[in-house]
């Protein structure tokens, strides 16, 4: 494994997907909560990717 291969965006996306998958599995998904979660997840992925590229 090399540091060049490490992809922070993939890691962030993976964690977001695991969180959403668990949420759907457990239940309690509502429209009110869904849109903020999706937007927040997307924002987290883009933020991580952007910060990693700046370094």
């Amino acid at each position, binding site marked *: *494994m090399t540091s060049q*291969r*490490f*992809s*922070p*965006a*993939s*890691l962030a*996306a*993976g*964690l*977001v*997907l*695991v*969180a*959403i*998958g*668990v*949420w*759907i*599995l457990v239940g309690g*998904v*509502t*429209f*009110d909560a*869904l849109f903020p*979660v*999706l937007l927040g*997840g*997307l924002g987290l*992925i883009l933020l991580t990717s952007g910060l990693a590229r700046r370094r």
Partner: protein
Amino acid sequence: MNETPETTTPDPSPKRLERVKEGRMLTGVAAGIGRYLGVDANLVRIGFVALTVLGGCGILVYLAAAVLLPGEDGQPPIIKSMRLPWRSGAGRAAIGATLLVIAASAVLASTDSVRWDTAAAIAILGFGAILIVAAFAGGARWLIVPALLLAGVVGFLKAADVHLRGGWGDRDVAVASVADLHDRYDLAAGRLRVDLRDLELSEGQQQSVHARVGMGDLVIRVPQGVTVDADARSGAGEIELFGRHSEGLGVTRTTARDAGAPGGGTLHLDADVGLGRVIVVRDPAPMASMPKLGWDRTP
């Protein structure tokens, strides 16, 4: 008398189908095809637009040509310079793992014991795990966008409490008597029409019916001589319950006790649609939307 011999200069390079820079508007595909066929490039562009409008394949053919055709001066096709995931070992491993996750989820969803949303959630978890591993090994960045889209769609359907059970398509159910009446009517997607006009319930007699459509329309016609206690829900869509209309996103419930002619029994109706419309009418139906749903107003 001297005659000048007619000479022809052979074309130094054979005709090649390629993307060209001269006269191009986007990628040079239409200009290249026009030059190859000896026709105006605008005719080729009109052909692509016509194919797109008529059958939708024009844009696909254009995109395929854009990545597969070589450029001028021996430039390789765009596809050769794309970082396609199957070109690396890690990429092939990620594709394989993704296919395995999809196959496992499809097998789970096909069993009656596992709900579709559970199988989909397991698939999303699997994609998340693949991405976490691939963050260190590489080869799965292409999975980010489709997996997030899948998570959004599944989350939306879960929020609307869509149940996918009972097949697909249009289904008509006509109930002639109490003996014909089932407790449940389920349809995964499409249009379910339950015709209860011939149902007769004597005074004091009670019957319950639960009709559910995952995505689509649920239309129920009830007879005149029966009191109906209806509970209708649409996760995202609209409800028309005995002429009362409500619509919106999220769980929408409307309960109404609609009295029929005196001397009849009571029908407890539970009408549920995840995404779409619930329409409950007493015959004869005083609603304009009935012809669109395939039933006219005549008995």
